[in-house]
């Protein structure tokens, strides 16, 4: 037994007296393996390669999905080209397919929901981390996290039976009565439509943004706050310091929320009105990419029809990728700016 191996065994805290024969066999094996794999520990090597294969499996999965969607949507891509993205006609009978209303609906509803829920979430997170007494913080945090556990079909039913009637009978008539001069509040109050979808999405992405923002804010050391107070800062100023310190984290939380909003299917389908129409008016019905897939895929009869739907799935796939890329970029640029200061 050479000195190098003995040292290593001592370092690992292994007994040198017991199981002598097994140990020597193990060491021989390890030496043999070591000579194969240039000096690395055999167990480590197996472990490393196992984890590597897991990681590559995920990568391969994404590539396969993308490739499958691309090949399956080829008939539609060849037929419509860029017109698929710029045309607003969706007519399965005439086989004219344009995805613009769905792309618009997805982006419009998600971004609007993000706008509302980020405001609410950051407010809630500030209260929870800076003001609330511990018992209240626990209760509110638990409630917020409970919201995340509710299945989306339940949100959809809530939308149909509670939100839509409320919007139709109370909120929309009031809004269009008082604010009709603002174009987004113009239109017939159906209850079902873009605004219902936006509100449902807002509720659905609130928990994720709130709880991540709160965790991030709480991770700022108490000493930093006390230092700011010691310098005579007001509560408002301290909160600003906390927020600016964690800007990238909060942005990341918002983008996670946006990701969920873009992909949300069932709840949105149930309240958005499902009409492929491009309108900035909040009361008008709309349609999203995920919704049209859920609605029409199972009964899509012709090959071109199926292919057009798969192309929408592909676009959604790409859109999620782009959103993630933009998210990374924003987070990176903000972090860099902050670290320079």
């Amino acid at each position: 037994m050479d000195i190098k191996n003995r040292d290593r065994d001592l370092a690992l805290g292994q007994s040198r007296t017991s199981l002598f024969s097994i140990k020597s066999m193990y060491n021989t094996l390890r030496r043999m393996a070591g000579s194969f794999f240039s000096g690395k520990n055999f167990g480590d090597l197996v472990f490393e390669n196992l984890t590597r294969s897991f990681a590559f499996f995920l990568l391969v999965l994404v590539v396969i999905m993308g490739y499958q969607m691309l090949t399956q949507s080829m008939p539609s891509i060849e037929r419509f080209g860029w017109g698929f993205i710029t045309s607003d006609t969706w007519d399965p009978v005439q086989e004219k397919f344009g995805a613009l209303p769905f792309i618009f609906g997805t982006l419009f509803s998600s971004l609007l929901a993000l706008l509302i829920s980020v405001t609410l979430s950051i407010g809630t997170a500030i209260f929870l981390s800076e003001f609330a007494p511990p018992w209240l913080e626990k209760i509110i945090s638990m409630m917020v996290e409970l919201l995340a556990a509710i299945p989306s079909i339940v949100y959809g039913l809530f939308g149909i039976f509670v939100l839509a009637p409320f919007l139709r009978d109370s909120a929309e008539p009031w809004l269009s009565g008082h604010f009709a001069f603002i174009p987004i509040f113009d239109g017939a109050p159906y209850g079902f439509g873009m605004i219902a979808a936006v509100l449902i999405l807002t509720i659905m992405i609130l928990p994720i943004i709130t709880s991540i923002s709160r965790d991030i804010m709480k991770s700022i050391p108490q000493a930093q706050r006390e230092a700011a107070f010691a310098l005579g800062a007001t509560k408002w100023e301290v909160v600003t310091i906390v927020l600016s310190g964690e800007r990238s984290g909060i942005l990341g939380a918002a983008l996670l929320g946006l990701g969920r909003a873009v992909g949300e299917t069932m709840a949105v389908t149930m309240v958005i009105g499902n009409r492929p129409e491009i309108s900035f008016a909040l009361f008008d019905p709309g349609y999203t990419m995920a919704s049209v897939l859920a609605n029409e895929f199972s009964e899509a009869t012709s090959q071109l029809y199926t292919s057009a739907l798969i192309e929408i799935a592909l676009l959604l796939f790409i859109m999620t990728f782009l959103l993630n890329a933009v998210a990374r970029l924003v987070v990176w640029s903000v972090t860099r700016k902050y670290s320079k200061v």
Partner: protein
Amino acid sequence: MKFKFFVILGIIMVSSVLNAQMKLNGAGATFPYVIYSKWFDVYHQKTGIQFNYQSIGSGGGIKQVIEGTVDFGASDAPMTDQQLKEAQSKRGTEILHIPTVMGAVVVTYNLPQTGKGLKLTPEVLTDIFLGKVKKWNDPRITSLNKGKNLPDKAIFVAHRSDGSGTTNIFTGYLSKVSNEWKNKVGQGTSVNWPVGLGGKGNEGVAGLVKQTQGAIGYVELAYAVQNGLPYAALKNKAGNFVEPTFASVSQAAAGFIKNMPADLRVEITNAGGKDSYPISAFTWLLVYKNMKDKGKAKAISDFLRWAVTEGQKFAPGLYYAPLPKEVVKLDEKKISNITVK
């Protein structure tokens, strides 16, 4: 004596074991799922033959029949010539269409002041869904419903947002009675609706209609009956206003008997006969004419024969219209064509 008894017992046991191994796989339409599962259950208890039916939608059922992944398919819409040709080339056999039960699409509405029994003609119905008749007190509606209180309210159109056989039947009817509809919109499981909002599934449309005063929409007869929705009486080809009932739906098939094509692929909307409800339809089981497996061929023929005769007695209780005698005869003739290659 005893010996004979045991032989017979043995034969029964062996045959029941053999039968128990028989398993028929099917996939397709969701609309007849309730009665099909009843049939499969009762027939399984009678004979030991197992059925595995997945209600994935008519489009999916047709695809699976063409790909040969099932023993039988089911569809609310007959296969197109092109699909039949594809099946012929891929499976090397004809596909037989066996009408099993009947359903109907009813026009439901929400007008509390007007009450039940609204009368509509095909022309007015089409123009409502084209968005040309916009108000309930339009003279074209009031002249059909003398003595009824029709409000000065906008008509709100609700339709299915998901691809469905119900939509296919409804738009097929509108295309038959109106050239304008045929040219502008056409027939399909999903169409480009000129007006209105989409709800997912029968329950989605019913939800929209129930919640919105002045709404009009279409749902399956079974769904309307089960949920007590009011429905309109429609003017049929003979000029009578007919309410959708199991009898008037069966009448529609009987009224079509003279024009029934040999392959039984026929849409019986706008049928002749004085009591025929105009938006009635068959639902079909799709079977291979030449089957490879002798046991399966016999099992499926026996089952079909049983379903179109004895099985019909389950129909009204499950809100389907039974086949009229004339169609049962045609079915039996068709079933006897199933052969083994």
